[in-house]
């Protein structure tokens, strides 16, 4: 438990991940954590990833409150207890 990070799932992607709002996942980088979710939940991965190693550009990933694109992207290191938020562009209004 203490080696994991918490991944926050946006409501639009919850049906593809067993309706879970957040998951505790083990992994040393953002890529490892999202990669293991991708393996476990391929339908979820299909929506998140654009290619093998690229996140769709209308979805942002934050570690705590920082955008991974401006850190080390999928290589951004994680420490236990970090919160990884998956944040899609919200279009409605």
């Amino acid at each position, binding site marked *: 438990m203490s080696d994991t990070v918490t991944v*926050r799932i*946006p*409501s*639009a992607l919850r049906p593809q991940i067993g309706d879970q*709002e957040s998951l505790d996942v083990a992994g040393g980088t953002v890529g490892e954590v999202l990669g293991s979710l991708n393996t476990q939940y391929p339908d979820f991965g299909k*929506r998140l990833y654009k290619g093998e190693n690229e996140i*769709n*550009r*209308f979805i*942002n990933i*934050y570690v705590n*409150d*920082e*955008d991974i*694109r*401006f850190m080390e992207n999928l290589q951004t290191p994680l420490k236990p207890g970090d919160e990884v*938020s998956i*944040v*899609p*562009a*919200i*279009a*409605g*209004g």
Partner: protein
Amino acid sequence: MSQDLERYHRQMLLPGFGEEGQRRLMDAKVLIVGCGALGTVIANMLARAGVGHLVIVDRDFIEITNLQRQVLFDERDVAEGIPKAEAAKQKIAGINSQVTVEAIVDDVNHTNVERFATGLPGVGKVDLIMDGVDNFETRYLANDVAVKHGIPYIYGGAVGTVGASYAVLPHTVTPGETGETPWERAGVATPCLRCIFEQAPPPGVNPTCDTAGVIGPAVSIVANYQVAEALKVLTGNLDVVSPTMLNFDLWGNHFKQFKVARAYDVGECECCKKRNFEFLDGKFGSSTTTLCGRNAVQLTQKFNGSKLDFDEIAKRLKAHGKVTANKFMLRADITDNGEPYELTLFNDGRAIIKGTKHASVAKGIYAKYVGA
């Protein structure tokens, strides 16, 4: 205190506001793009706060399913079939007669958005653009205009129980130079919307309020947050404008503020760093053609070229009527505001909407039921 200011006494008590702040509001001109759930809350609060000149643009009419969250409208507007922009103007006339409202019933697109923001007779360049929109194409248009002309723009979006908002105080020059706007001189300019979300979600990927639902509080919170940022901008309290993006889920009891400043410092934004206004230039976005003699409009989408997910779209549209799909196209019967339409969707995002000759109606149906 002069009599015209009396009604604003409670907000003038605030530090950083005062009579000077109120005078600034009364002189301000604000463009509200879209007058649905976000737009009605925004228009209502800005009018009550005494923002002197509002330009409200919306292409749509009021329907009964709007009343659950669109606070300026009532049952009589539905019965009388009044356009949203016009109904908002009528309501505001009774709320605050010191405010002038220009109501424009039109689709916002790359051919007219600059005129609405900078060139309306008797209005000229607005001081602020408020986002009351239900699709990303129009948001990127508003963002392009804001960056090109140096007008603050406040993004808001909501669906289901989630919402997001963010204030753009745009950079008006290329990196390395210092722009002349008050926010650039104060060193508080912020990244633009395309710095944060580089691309619009492709059609059919995102839930919309008409397919996934929405609760009033989600939109009200976003819109009122936008209004708070607007009051800071318009009263000149630029130093307290939030440099973060608000993101929340009311059902999950989760509120976050994400940092965004590095998006401009490190990113390679086409819009605010390279000053390439792709949406305004018509490079992206949709175009419409009325299909002669067929009571139908064709809508062509320019996006990143991926194929639409018909299974997902069919699932969402089933609640609205009959849906059939094969490998090449999806056809759905939709009743919107009591009118029947037939939506035919091709897997490259192109659509034919039968049941109307009007581009703005077709774009409205697409935004509401497919999403873009």
